[in-house]
């Protein structure tokens, strides 16, 4: 059994094990350690995914097949990881770690339940990333979704259950779309396995089954778009993020929508390369998302809602990267996903810090807080500059790669439009920074002190990561150049 075989087992085994331990030990005993344990699982997953990435990359294989331990002995291989999914597994680990660090401070009641739900969520996302057919993908997506609804509702911060409810209703719609789409696709292909779905499905003689598979594609794209919160399917997302506790918002914004929605889109893109309709739809959705998200972010008063709409807007760039439909485009999209996750997670930890210290998230009531909360202010500015694409921060490089990918794929107009639209992200973030951290200190906050503990640690970690990745990014470029992609 190779090292990779051991590591891949961890992605399902660790959350399951943590679930068992968490529920066998009495709750009162676990109260102080439960989040620590879940943070440990997240860290282990992060490390496992990174090691797995290095190992797989060194082995020269494109993917690695495995199965649950007892089946693997029989030589079955119904799961698989490749470089893309390992990269995403690492992202899942990273964001979960940050969410746990924040949860130390923000989650007080039902701590064990938090761990339970988080482990289920992790299980769902890991499952999505390792399965080899569209139906299993859907099943694990639902697992993730159910954990999310409960988490939003259970750890509500400012609002009632409305956010969770809306998310659930919209997710049901997505379920309808996806299940219908899958069944229609099954009629034509006779299977939903990644190995059997080929671009050839849409070629040849146009008969009823081919038409139905086109309809299936429309339904799948729409369903996944609801899950990823792409305009015009985005309306549930800000309500959900705002309702949820900051630790949950970090999970939702940082990784859940990305795995549940964007990764599913990526699966479609990788299954059907060269599908012009799919590509065009992603372009249209991407541009629409960037514009609408940014415009809506300009109007918001709540720190979290601004961050939420910014998430919507930034999702557009990832879609644009995928829409380039080249290896470089996919890599650019994934790197964008990582840098955006870092920055957006930082903003939600800032939101947690502000909510904890001020009791409000309304930016109009803030002002001049950089004097009182320098670490929060700094990490927020770093995150803003990264998202707005200011060199040399991480966000600049990934945005640049997306633009290069679009340009080299011949979509020069789209690249120019995307570049121009990034001014809008600068606009709403400048507004946010100006209202919250710059200017004169609102006398109401004279006695406010800087946040401490896990939140400060994650703020610092994320800022350092954003800056360090930005500074070291040329190495990534060299690697990409070596691989002949740039």
């Amino acid at each position, binding site marked *: 059994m190779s090292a990779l075989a051991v590591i891949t087992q961890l992605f399902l085994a660790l959350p399951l094990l943590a679930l068992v331990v968490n529920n066998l030990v009495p709750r009162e005993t676990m109260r102080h350690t439960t989040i620590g344990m879940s943070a440990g699982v997240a860290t282990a997953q992060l490390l496992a995914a990174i090691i797995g990435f290095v190992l797989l990359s060194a082995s020269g294989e494109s993917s690695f097949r495995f199965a649950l331990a007892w089946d693997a002995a029989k030589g079955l291989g119904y799961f698989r990881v490749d470089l893309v999914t390992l990269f995403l597994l690492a992202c899942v680990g990273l964001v979960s770690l940050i969410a746990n660090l924040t949860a130390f401070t923000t989650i007080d009641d039902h701590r064990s339940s938090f761990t339970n739900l988080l482990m289920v969520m992790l299980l769902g996302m890991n499952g999505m990333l390792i399965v080899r057919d569209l139906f299993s993908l859907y099943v694990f997506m639902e697992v993730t979704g159910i954990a999310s609804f409960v988490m939003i509702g259970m750890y509500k911060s400012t609002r009632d259950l409305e956010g969770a409810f809306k998310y659930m209703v919209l997710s049901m719609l997505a379920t309808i779309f996806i299940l219908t789409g899958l069944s229609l696709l099954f009629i034509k292909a006779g299977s939903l396995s990644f190995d059997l779905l080929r671009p050839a499905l849409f070629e040849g003689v146009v008969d009823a089954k081919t038409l139905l598979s086109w309809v299936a594609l429309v339904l799948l794209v*729409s369903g996944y778009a609801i899950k990823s919160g792409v305009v015009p399917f985005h*309306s549930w997302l800000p309500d959900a993020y705002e309702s949820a506790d900051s630790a949950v918002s970090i999970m939702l914004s940082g990784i859940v929508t990305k795995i549940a929605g964007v990764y599913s889109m990526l699966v479609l893109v990788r299954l059907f390369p060269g599908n*012009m309709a799919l590509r065009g739809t992603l372009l249209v959705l991407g541009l629409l998302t960037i514009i609408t998200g940014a415009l809506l972010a300009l109007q918001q008063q709540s720190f979290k809602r601004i961050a939420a709409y910014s998430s919507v807007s930034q999702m557009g760039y990832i879609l644009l990267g995928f829409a380039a439909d080249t290896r470089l485009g996919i890599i650019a999209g994934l790197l964008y996903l990582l840098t955006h996750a870092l920055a957006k997670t930082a903003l939600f930890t800032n939101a947690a810090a502000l909510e904890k210290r001020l009791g409000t998230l309304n930016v109009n009531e803030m002002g001049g807080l950089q004097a009182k909360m320098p670490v929060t202010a700094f990490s927020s500015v770093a995150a803003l500059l990264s998202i707005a694409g200011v060199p040399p921060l991480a966000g600049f490089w990934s945005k640049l790669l997306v633009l290069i990918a679009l340009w080299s794929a011949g979509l020069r107009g789209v690249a120019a439009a995307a570049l121009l639209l990034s001014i809008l992200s600068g606009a709403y973030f400048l507004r946010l920074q100006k209202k919250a951290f710059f200017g004169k200190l609102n006398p109401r906050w004279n006695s406010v002190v800087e946040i401490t503990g896990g939140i400060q640690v994650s703020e610092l970690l994320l800022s350092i990561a954003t800056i360090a990745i930005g500074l070291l990014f040329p190495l990534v470029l060299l690697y990409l150049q070596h691989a002949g992609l740039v």
Partner: protein
Amino acid sequence: MASVCAWLLGGATLPLMLIGLPILGGLIIWLLKKYYAAQVAAVLVFGLSNVFLCLALYLGGGASVSLPFAGYGFEAKFISGGLSAVLPLFASVVAFLLARYSVTYYRGKKEGGLFLLFFFVSVGFVNGALLSDNLPVMLVFWEGLLISMSALLLIGNLQKPRATIKMLWISGVADLMLMLGVIITIQVAGQSNISAISHLPVSGLGAAGCVLMLLGALGKAGAVPFHSWIPLAAEDAQSPFLALFPAALEKILGIGLAIRIVTQIYDVQPGSPVSTFVMIVGAVTLFIGVAMALIQKDMKRLLSYHAISQVGYMILGVGSALPIGIIGALFHMMNHVLYKSGLFLTAGAIEKRTGTTDLKIVSGLGKLMPVTAACFVVFGLAISGFPGLNGFFSKELIFDAALETNVVYYIVALVGAAMTAISFLKLGGAAFFGKLTLPQGVKHVKEAPVGMALPAIVLALLCVLLGVFNQLAHTFLLQPALGFTESYGGWPESGMLVTLSCVALGVALLDHLYGRKKSGSALQSADHIHYAPGAKQVYALAEAGKLDPYNWLTAVINGFSRVCMQIEKGVSWVYDKGVPGLVRGISSQLHRAANGSLTRYLALAAAGLVCVAIVFLIILL
């Protein structure tokens, strides 16, 4: 000691000392501004040392020094010889006299130190411009002169810098033309050393280069339409500045360069289009200058218009491209520097003693300032071309060249001469020989101080000397400068020209007497011309500045900038109001649409599905 002299006169260091020493002198004189006697001594030391160095250069038969700038393939080369040996010598003598005058003029005035500083800096720059052999290096000094000149013009006018601004605009345009001309010339010649360029063909690109360089040079000298700042400066600036720049240094530089262009750099033939063009510029300059001078009632303004008009003669001579015209132009330039500086010195003496040069306020000073009056008479006769004085001889040479080219030029020149005489009869009659009037509050007017009278006397003597012994000027200055072997000195050959010139002077005298009788005073003796039918309207327009190309251009530029400002406002509006307003409007509409209603969310998602389907259809069909 001998070795030091040998080193000094060895030639190699001399041109550099000629640039550095006056600038050093200026600094020292500036530092001595509180001590009048020490300042006088310093002016004597540095002014005379400049003269002696130039003399050494002249007697030494020329020198050459080149300073290579390592690694750039570029060298600054200074050459003395011919024109660039004679002109620095001449300029140094005049500059010394004017400096001596200025010290006394500015005695007790706080701006005197700065004035002398920039005075000497200008002298150093002029030496540099005259001696430099590379066209770009010459341009550096030429432009540097613009700085010292505007500084001099600003002194005492800091609150009202209109003349400086106008001068910078006009000279800037002229210098720009010169610069373009230099670039083209270097391109055509393939190199930038004047001494190595010889008679480039005036055709194609060369014609453009020649005309542009000539315009730049003549613009410096004050040719129409680059003249209009001079009368304005005459209103605002003090007499020493006017004597130094518009009367002396600008003419030496401008005409000197124009002569070089015509005789050496380009192959300008008599009767060629370039020659005709330059001669037309000369005739127009001559006529407009003298016509405007005729009606002036302020001594400095009147003299400033003559500084323009006299340039017209020089341009006529240069433009003819005939040897007699060119030597006449050079001679006339030197004569003009002598008498026009002298005239400004007499105006300065009046200004110093009475505080004004407005002849309506001050007149009839002859008895009170006899020495000044005597000098004025000499200068006035010289500029009018009275036979026997220097102006007469140079003017006759130019008349000769003009007549040889085309009789029209000759007629304009002759009429100009008569009008010059008329205006100087009027000026002299009013300023020195009429009824005594003094400004209010001025009781006792004395003769000018010795420090101011002496330079004027020396200049007057030089005028007589160059007139009576004009053969000397030809032998020792003009012929060596131009390298001519044939002499044009002595009494003019053509008796007819002399006769006609005398007739013109006679007509001028008669006209003056008529005008004086008609109006009753010397000052108004030219009014019958001023208010003659037709002339009156033109003069009114000219005096109102309506005919000044500078004002036209300023109006055009103002209009253009107003248009630009409107465009800028529009663009700013788009950025400041338009785009943000659009963004804000759309985003608030979107915000209002997202009202939290679940049905709306579901409808939106359903609409999204339809959208995706439509996109699919569009792309697939």
